[in-house]
């Protein structure tokens, strides 16, 4: 069976399950697939919805860019500096295990109610996983690659760009994929708790007035977005690494 047929089958099964669950719990708790898609189409036709989408995207793109640049840089530095890495690893792991939402009031106090608080909260979720993955990518690189580049008498920049970078890339992409979903999660949670705009805000409002189809429509949109980006990153990884 070809790959695409398998994907299609899983998708179909999910829709059937969704429909079944809808029939079981009733329309007031779970909108049907058809209702959701109809609602989403209606939302996409309004300008206000797009304002919210762009607000969320702005916060997300900024938070993801910071997590990406900061996480990879920090991770590589900690990977190269053994002592610093040994000190930082348990600290980062512990920090990451804190339920970050309890710190959100502090974030709000520091950054105010605007977009910067959402960005900061997104970074709090995404930065550490990307850092840890990048650090381990360097640490777990096969020592024989370093020796190989030495005996081939490569210059430091040749070593960095033609050996180290391709060698650590797969692990870094794994970290980036994880960081992507967590950053998105952070931004949305931020919007849900304290914001006047964005998809997270729309979700909270819909929950407050019981608009099940709106909640589902937003969830569907976010799912499609996240799955698409994840698939693209996986494709990129496979094309680059041949593993």
């Amino acid at each position: 069976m070809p790959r695409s047929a398998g994907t299609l089958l899983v998708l179909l099964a999910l829709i059937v399950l969704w429909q079944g669950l809808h029939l079981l719990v009733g329309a007031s708790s779970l909108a049907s697939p058809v209702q959701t898609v109809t609602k989403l189409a209606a939302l996409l036709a309004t300008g206000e919805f797009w304002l919210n989408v762009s607000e969320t995207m702005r916060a997300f793109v900024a938070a993801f860019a910071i997590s990406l640049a900061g996480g990879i840089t920090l991770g590589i530095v900690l990977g190269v500096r053994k002592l610093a890495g040994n000190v930082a690893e348990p600290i980062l792991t512990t920090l990451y295990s804190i339920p970050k939402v309890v710190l959100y009031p502090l974030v709000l106090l520091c950054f105010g109610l605007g977009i910067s608080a959402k960005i900061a909260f997104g970074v709090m979720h995404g930065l550490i996983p990307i850092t840890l993955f990048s650090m381990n990518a360097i640490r777990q690189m096969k020592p024989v690659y370093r020796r190989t580049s030495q005996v081939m008498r490569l210059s430091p920049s040749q070593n960095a760009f033609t050996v180290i970078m391709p060698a650590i890339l797969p692990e870094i992409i794994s970290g980036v994929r994880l960081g992507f979903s967590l950053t998105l999660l952070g931004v949305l949670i931020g919007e849900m708790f304290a914001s006047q705009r964005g998809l997270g805000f729309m979700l909270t409002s819909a929950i407050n007035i019981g608009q099940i189809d709106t909640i589902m429509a937003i969830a569907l949109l976010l799912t499609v977005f996240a799955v698409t980006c994840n698939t693209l990153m996986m494709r990129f990884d496979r094309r680059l690494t041949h593993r």
Partner: protein
Amino acid sequence: MSAAASGAKIVPLAPQVAAAEAHARLRGVTRVFELPKSTLHALGPIDLDLAKGEFFSVVGPSGCGKSTLLDILAGLSEPQAGTAEFEGKPIRGVPDGVGVVFQEDASFPWLNVRDNVAFGLRRAGMDPAEITRRVDYAVGFMGLKDFAGSYPAQLSGGMRQRVCIARTLVLQPRLILLDEPFGALDQQTRLLMGDELLRLWRETSATVLLITHALDEAAMLSDRVGVMSTRPGTFIDFVETGWERDRDSRVVSTPHFGDITARLWEKLRIEALKIMSAGKA
């Protein structure tokens, strides 16, 4: 291959080649590792002359400093005492003209076989036409022609090691250092890879230093075998095999091969026993 055996001789502690001819020379080389709580005297003092075009193997018990010896010749590690020279010049950093094949699979998984083999030449900025010529030759020579577009993940361990050998071969090293290159392969593959290595050695007229823990490998491939003691590793015996240059793995069925292996094992057994009893104590 019995012809080879007839002219063979076993010389006790073979004389060193005259100093002027030595391709690589170690004198009083000693390596000590500073550990947090102690110092580890890993190697030496070692005296060794490698004649130009010689196939020399090193056998020794595990942990005797064989790989440290290779690192010093490759310029990856500096001795605390003594001198190391290659082609009459002291070894500082990796010398030009030295190629190394490691035990671990060092092929790059992100490059296909051709690009792996061409890697060093491209970094050296060689003319593309010359790269193509050399890579075609090495890929063909190592029997990788049908796999030129494959990636290492699609190849067996033996094939990947061929890629690494080809990658070193294209650089046309005058001294090839091999650190247990077939250690991870099964016995049959190892014998066949040994044949490849002999073919390569004849073709390139390079000097070869092979580190191995397999006595049969050393006995079959080498002109001369050095036996090392337990740590700190020093040479306790040199055995000349007397094989013709045109030999292959079939020498293993000759009585002379048995003699060489027996001689090697006689020396090595004592050293291996020391390690075992030390482990028990």
